[in-house]
């Protein structure tokens, strides 16, 4: 997501209307409910929700955990854009002209109650692409005694995609995922590419063959909404295009993983640098001993007493 830094430094309107699309699974009814919340500078949408829950309506249900954009639990649709509630300031989404914050549960997910959505399908699809390092030698993977060697360039190939926090915002924004329940979704495909691009992964062909048979990757048509809403700049759109290009090259036998990371013993630790002798000096003509003996401008005793 491109952060609107100017908007985040603005002062929010003093009172905002928080409109929440609520859902009750017992009766199956859905309705919009409105709360007025007094704001303060730096207030996030999650803060507003917590204030509503504490002061107005404790039947309101939402999910959150870390409050700092790391756990990915508080994904919501704020003013028709999937965002993390804890990373979105009220000032970003509400203005004096329109002091309204509309909150909906994530699109394309099953709603359990109010703003809480079901991630079973999401994690099932994530699991389907085998998001872990696979080696031919299973023992080496399960009980490692040595390390994998990898250069910084090889790390840079997939590092960006490994930052995914599984918040589900990309799937909520994807127009293909909206209409096709069988599509694996940007998150799962990005994680597939993250392990295909990782040199430590040895059984990448297995993953590529799964994606080829499933055919799910060819349903993506680069609307790039996933990248536009991703709060961690993971860039799922780019990853899916690279994965598809890799798969096509693999199909016509042009792609081979050039290097598979080898197992190597841990790098030897460097010896700590030797301390300099007391008479050593970096600047010529300056004696360190003389500097130590100089009286400080403020006596130490005075500093300690005040």
């Amino acid at each position, binding site marked *: 997501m491109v952060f609107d830094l100017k908007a985040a430094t603005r002062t929010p309107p003093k009172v905002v209307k928080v409109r929440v699309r609520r859902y009750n699974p017992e009766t199956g009814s859905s309705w919009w409910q409105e709360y007025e919340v007094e704001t303060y500078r730096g207030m996030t949408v999650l803060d507003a929700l917590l204030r509503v829950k504490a002061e107005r309506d404790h039947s309101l249900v939402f999910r959150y955990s870390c409050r700092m954009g790391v756990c990915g639990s508080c994904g919501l649709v704020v003013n028709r854009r999937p965002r993390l509630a804890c990373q979105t300031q009220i000032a970003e989404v509400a203005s004096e002209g329109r002091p309204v914050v509309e909150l909906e549960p994530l699109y394309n997910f099953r709603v359990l109650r109010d703003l809480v959505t079901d991630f079973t399908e999401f994690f099932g699809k994530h699991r389907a692409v085998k998001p872990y390092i696979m080696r031919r030698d299973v023992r080496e993977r399960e009980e490692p005694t040595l390390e994998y060697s990898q250069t910084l360039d090889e790390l840079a190939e997939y590092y*960006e995609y490994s930052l995914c926090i599984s918040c589900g915002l990309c799937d909520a924004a994807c127009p293909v995922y909206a209409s096709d329940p069988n599509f694996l979704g940007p998150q799962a495909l990005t994680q597939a590419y993250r392990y295909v691009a990782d040199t430590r992964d040895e059984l990448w062909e297995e993953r590529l063959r799964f994606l080829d048979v499933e055919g799910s990757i060819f349903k993506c048509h680069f*609307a790039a909404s996933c990248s536009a809403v991703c709060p961690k700049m993971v860039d799922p759109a780019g990853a899916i295009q690279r994965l598809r*290009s890799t798969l096509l090259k693999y199909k016509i036998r042009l792609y081979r993983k050039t290097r598979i990371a080898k197992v190597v013993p841990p790098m030897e630790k460097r010896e700590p640098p030797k301390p300099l002798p007391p008479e050593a000096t970096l600047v010529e003509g300056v004696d360190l001993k003389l500097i130590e003996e100089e009286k400080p401008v403020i006596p130490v005793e005075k500093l300690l007493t005040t």
Partner: protein
Amino acid sequence: MERGKFRFASNRLGVMASFYPWIIDIKGNPERVAFTLHRLTGVILVGFIALHIVSTNTPARAGWEAWVEEVQRLSGVNLVSILFFIAMGALVFHSLNGIRLLLVELLALGIGRPEKPKPPYIPPSLKGYQRTLIYVVFILSLVIWALMGYVIFLM
């Protein structure tokens, strides 16, 4: 879906998400507009091809004069020429955007290199030259469409 006495609601946006880009806030995402237009023009082209086969079938069998008569219906302002004009606009956009999509989707070109996140956190695929190509496609197709309109309606 039923589970015990609870009913859980599906929140899927459905096909509307493909044909109405403003169903979500698409600020900073012109790719979504191009995607929607690509779908819409694709549907128009399928209809056009079907109509085209039906409408050219009889005159093509009936001989040269019938064919010339059919082709003459395309000039001047009437229902057939307006539909033809719309189909040609769809064709131009769909083909130009298709070239851009082939570059991006098959060859993974124009989407930058993976990089470490740093402010202002713009993903590389939204900074690559495919973004420039979108505007080129929009402008070029408008220009070519206008020229086609001139040829169809005014010449």
